[in-house]
């Protein structure tokens, strides 16, 4: 699973549209499963499944009819299309409403169906353009679980501007900025990019003013919040730091390295905040 992460206008959808042969590149080309997007558009379309950014469904058709339509347009024989659609509707948790017109569906159900329409006919590559856009956190989380269930079975390229989404779903992430890939790697790789300093969070009792003065004298970046100490610095050694805090008379209850977030990485790579 590969994510294109970037803010609105960074070129994620344009990239997907070009790869799906919906948009002609002004110059250059790309290959999808070996097919040239400029010269072999139809061949490209035989190996891809797409869930566009908008929840694009045929509103007056049922979920089954929507799925069957796409399956048939992708060249699946009618009886097989019917069977696959019925199975997919169940997998996506829409079985009980399979005969209802989709205009009556909730946003989350529509998104699930949209993704199912990308999955039908077993394409080699699936493009999901902002699959959880506009959903509430609960529905978004539920949809992540559905998408994550295809991990390891399908090659999925998704675009998102949600950090947690890219972090939760993707094996690899490309950070896009102004139409270009600014950085690429696994979530951990990208986070590591921002790790020019470490932060250790220590929860401790019995922290006297003298103890704090001693800690501040040794470490240049110390933040105190109640019983919580946040100590930052380059190449911090966990054992050495906790031993020093303990030596000041403080009683340590817990201590851990703060994980660098993808947001930190994005900020470092692009110099911009990524709006949620």
């Amino acid at each position: 699973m590969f994510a294109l992460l970037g803010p609105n206008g960074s070129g994620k959808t344009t990239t997907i549209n070009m790869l799906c042969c919906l948009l002609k590149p002004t110059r250059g080309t790309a290959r999808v499963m070996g097919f040239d997007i400029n010269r072999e558009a139809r061949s490209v379309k035989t190996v891809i499944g797409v869930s566009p950014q908008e929840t694009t469904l045929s509103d007056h058709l049922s979920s089954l009819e929507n799925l069957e339509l796409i399956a048939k347009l992708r060249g699946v024989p009618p009886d097989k299309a019917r069977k696959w659609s019925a199975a997919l509707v169940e997998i996506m948790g829409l079985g009980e409403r399979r005969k209802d017109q989709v205009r009556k569906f909730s946003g989350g159900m529509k998104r699930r169906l949209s993704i199912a329409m990308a999955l039908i006919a077993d394409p080699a590559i699936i493009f999901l353009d902002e699959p959880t856009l506009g959903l509430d956190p609960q529905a978004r989380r539920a949809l992540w679980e559905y998408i994550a269930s295809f991990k390891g079975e399908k090659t999925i390229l998704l675009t998102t501007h949600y950090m947690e989404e890219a972090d939760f779903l993707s094996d690899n992430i490309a950070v896009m900025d102004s139409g270009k890939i600014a950085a690429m790697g696994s979530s951990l790789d990208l986070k590591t990019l921002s790790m020019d300093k470490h932060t250790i969070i220590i929860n401790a009792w019995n922290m006297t003013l003298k103890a704090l003065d001693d800690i501040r004298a040794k470490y240049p970046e110390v933040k105190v919040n109640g019983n919580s100490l946040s100590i930052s610095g380059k190449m911090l050694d966990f054992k050495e730091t906790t031993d020093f805090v303990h030596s000041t008379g403080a009683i340590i209850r817990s201590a851990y390295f703060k994980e660098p977030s993808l947001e930190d990485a994005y900020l470092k790579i692009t110099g911009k905040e990524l709006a949620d």
Partner: protein
Amino acid sequence: MRFVSLAIRNAKETCRDPLALGFLIAFPLLFMLLFGAALGGNSSLSYTIGVVDQDKTEVSGQFINQVLPGVAIFKIAPFESADEATEALKNANIKAALVIPAGFGDEVTKNWQQQQSNIILELVYDESDLTVSSQIVSTINATIRDFARVNIPVTINTSHINVETEVSQIDFIAPGIIIFGLLIMVPTSARIMVRDKETGFMARLLATPTYPWEFIAGYSASMLIVAIFQIIIFILLGIAFGMTVVGNMALAFLIFFLTAVCSISIGMIVAALAKSENQAEPLCWIISMPLAVLSGVWFSQEIMPGYIQFLGNIFPYSHAVSAARMVIIRGAEFSAVSGSIVFLACWAVIAFSLGIILFRYKMRA
């Protein structure tokens, strides 16, 4: 057969959308009901014609006393002189004055004997009511040709103008309303395609390995299904209001069907060019409403200036209206309307092809 799947989807989408279906059927239906109620029933047309017999032969007497009274839309009022008849016309007591000049009987007799003849009739009519006048002129023309056994002009070829038919207002207006209903298909067929474009559903469809012609055929076929039902409903409704189909019903249906193909293709062209429903809708109305007027849907094209007629005749609808009227009112046969049918078919093929070309070009813009 991807286009069949698309056609079924589009037909379902239209039929399950009460607004779209209502607009498609109800709008022209409303016109049909209004005109049917206003002009239908037994209120057949009847015009009083003043007749002056200057020939005073047995032949002219036979024409005036036996033939003209047999024409359903005429009531005959005899006058002694042309001046008297013209005066009655000025006073609106008659709709037209027909003067049968001396020598009429001889010329008709020559024609009966298959000799060279030159039949002349003088007709004075009220210019302020050209629709009525043109109908009177054409009916008298048909009647005298029938009486004198003159060959029907090449333009209508071998078709026989049935002067015995009782032409009612609804007979005249119903074919026009049916064509108007089919003109409404321009915005409706554009609407479903543009909506798919605007909502992004089209992008999903375009990401499948479907050919451009399959898209156009899929969208068109669904509208054609609707058009067939529409035509049947309107013909039945017209008949219910008293429309008499004198000619071949299948021929009339063919004319309406080709007209529907033209409308749907024009709709597809608009849909390919328009970026949104807001763009497509006014564009369609700008096209279809003036065409309804130019094509003589509501009133005869004869009364329009030449350049307007020329403009109207560029498009298929005026040909459709006149051909449909010829078949329904006059009972014209295929040969008489073949020119119009060929014109409609050519228009349909060209517009459909243009739709495909534009769609292909725009589908990856």
